[in-house]
């Protein structure tokens, strides 16, 4: 099976600090993957590189069947290629309603003139409601996003990600600040989504990762330390050293 995203030998340096060091990592078209690693392991920087926010010093990032390089592309082009991202800190448009937030994310033409001439259609409305249903915000469509609770904002952002219909979802700490029930629901949403696309979850919370029950990649000092099932990586001596070593320090 060919890979959806291939990251090869990528390095990036900030003021002499090597945030990503010769990182190589691949994702299949339908896959659920968790990326874990201690602070400063380069998880967020990795997402920044894939989504075009940070340009790496070296290495390649190859996308899709047509093997396009993502490196020369802008953030919005990459997003239109089908890579969606949820930020660590929930960033929804608080001044606007839940419906407006979702409508903005909905997969429709992105050009200014098609947006200007955009008409509300039944089909689009139905899609918004379906997504809202999925994230449990069907009753809150007219509420402004700023009024939502923290967990609801997280879901709204995941909902926006779903509405974008990306082929690759990069989800940064989706469960932060959620109650156990909310976490469970989040897990379900992500696993459901992973049936038709690649979902990459960056998470600190081991319990949440265990619940996802998927392949795990451990990042450390900007490169892959170990990869495999959660049980496999947690029994890996180097991983234990990194985590315990740090906690002992």
């Amino acid at each position, binding site marked *: 099976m060919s890979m959806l995203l291939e990251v090869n030998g990528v390095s990036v340096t*900030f*003021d002499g*600090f090597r*945030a990503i060091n010769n990182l190589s990592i691949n994702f299949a078209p339908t896959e659920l993957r968790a990326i874990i690693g201690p602070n400063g392991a380069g998880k967020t*920087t990795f997402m*920044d590189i894939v989504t075009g*926010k*940070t340009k790496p010093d070296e290495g390649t990032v190859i996308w899709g069947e047509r093997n396009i390089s993502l490196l020369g592309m802008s953030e919005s082009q990459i997003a239109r290629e089908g890579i969606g991202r949820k930020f660590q800190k929930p960033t929804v448009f608080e001044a606007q309603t839940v419906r407006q937030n979702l409508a903005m994310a909905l997969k429709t033409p992105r050009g200014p003139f098609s947006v200007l001439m955009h008409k509300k259609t039944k089909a689009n409305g139905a899609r918004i409601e379906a997504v809202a249903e999925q994230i449990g915000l069907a009753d809150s469509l007219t509420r402004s996003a700023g009024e939502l609770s923290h967990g609801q904002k997280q879901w709204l952002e995941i909902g926006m990600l779903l509405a974008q219909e990306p082929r690759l979802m990069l989800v940064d700490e989706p469960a932060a600040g959620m109650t156990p029930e909310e976490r469970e629901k989040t897990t379900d949403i992500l696993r459901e989504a992973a049936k038709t696309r690649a979902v990459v979850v960056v998470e600190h919370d081991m319990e949440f990762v265990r619940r996802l029950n998927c392949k795990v990649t451990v990042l450390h000092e900007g490169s892959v330390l170990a990869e495999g099932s959660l049980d496999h990586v947690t029994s890996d001596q180097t991983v234990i050293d990194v985590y315990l070593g740090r906690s002992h320090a």
Partner: protein
Amino acid sequence: MFRLFSLAVSFWLLLSSSLFAQSLQDILQTHAAEVAKPSRSSVSVVLDDLVASGLPQALPFLEAWRDREIVQRESDGLFFRSTETAGEVQLLDLDSGEMIAAGDQDLQKVRPNGGVRRAIGDALVQFQLSDPDIIKRQAAVDAIARSMDASQLGPLQASVAGETDANLKRVKQRLAGMLVATFGETPQDRIAAIEELSGDLSVDTRAVLNTILATNSAVSETLPEEGNLAKVLTIGEDISPEDAYSRLVAENLAPAPVSKVAIRDALLAHMDGGSVGGVPVSELGSDVTRARAYDRLAEDGLVPPRVSEAARTEAVAAHKFYLEYVESDPSVTDAARAALNGIETSVALSQTVDLGLDALSLASIYFLAAIGLAITFGVMGVINMAHGEFIMMGAYTGYVVQQFVPDYTVSIIIALPLAFAITFAAGVAMERLVIRHLYHRPLETLLATFGISIALQQLAKNIFGTQARPLTSPEWLDGALVFNDVIAISYIRIAIFVLALLFLMVILFVLKRTRLGLEVRAVTQNPGMAASMGINPDRINMMTFGLGSGIAGIAGVAIGLYAKVTSEMGADYIVQSFMTVVVGGVGNVWGTLAGASLIGFLQKGIEWLNPSNTLAAQTYMILFIILFIQFRPKGIVALKGRAAAD
């Protein structure tokens, strides 16, 4: 016997001329006719004798002669100087200076004409050149320098040896050199003198060389064989075809072209009822019909025919246009050209250095004006639109202090810290009252501080009025440091440069070596982390803002010293200050320095390219900055890393 007598008489005369002819009157009597009715050709004999006599009273006589104050008594032919006091004419004995009442004697006024008076003036100069009074000598040298003439060369050279003042001696030698270069006897002398001049950058040396290189513009069918040709003019490059043709017309080598105005006037003059030359007047609204009517008139011989474009081109092409040196000796002009080229190269070099110094002082001013802004912008991310008004406050502080402390040195020494204190306080007050409430809303801060800016500006106008107030610099800052005739820099600008340098060092010291600086840098790089480390960002912000404003106050005093203090002076600097910060990069002292240097040098550079139009220079500079931001959006010295990415 007679022979013996005559011998005796001549002996006596000889004796008297050596013993008694020392009297001025005697010399004048010897040449009585030439003195009474001087002419340009005859006067030189008298003047030579007068000069040779070395009599001190010859000088006042010459002045009086020139000023037409000399009279001749008809009774005995003696000369006197006449003065009029209280309506009564008095005669002064030329030798003793004794007053004699004129009474009703017959007096003949001596009236030298213009040429003679000039000759007398020249002779006077020779006297003055050796006058014991240095001021008179100086004046004589200046007079020669003002209007150089061949006749002055001899006396000037003669006076050099006896000159006691070393400085004046140098000036005399230099002037003599210029005179030799222009009027020297032989080409060899002149070339040698010209070569002597070649190291001299002064304007008068260049003027002398340019005089030697003066050209006449000439035209002929073929280039002349003789004469000292300077340059053959290329049509279209050195001279436009129109100008070339006008030269031909001026030399009567071609018929004058008929201008549109001339056509119009001719048509008006020959208007015949409703038509001219067979063309109805109503149709004469275009150049083509007017030309047709005119041509008809020309055919009838009423007006000179038009000169066609082709004929003009042909006439121009058939002639050579060239410049010819007034000086006929090519070796002299060649030497002058070489010397002038050498001087011009040196002048250009010096001008570059001078421009560099100018730019440096401008950069210092921008640095002073912008560094406070850069600090507040860097640390707090807020643009303080009232920064310019803090500069103004500093300048007015200086002005007010001078109203109470008359000693300018003392007043500046008081004003600098006082301006700092006042603007520091104003800055802290503004931070506490306004800016603190607007953190994380940078655009609103910009507008709020703009509100303060217009209020402060108007307040200053209400208090101090709209006219500019002087802030006088101490005497020791007057004048300029002169390197040569081209490079000079005023002491005030040097002082501002030193002040800027001092500030750079103080700020670097505060930022790098003090606890406050450490905390400020921490807050600049990561406010959240700094706060969690126990640094009180509130206090840091307040201190930073105060510091930035205080520096603006001191900059205000410095700027006020060389510019006028007005309520709008801040506004004049604010945009440049912003540019400096933006171009330099935020949050970095070196960035501000780089930005100030870039903008200072750029502005001077553009002004140099287009000296007539400073407005255009500023326009181009801003356009350059807008383009510059395209390539370095974060400025010259950009913060890198994750902190800068957001």
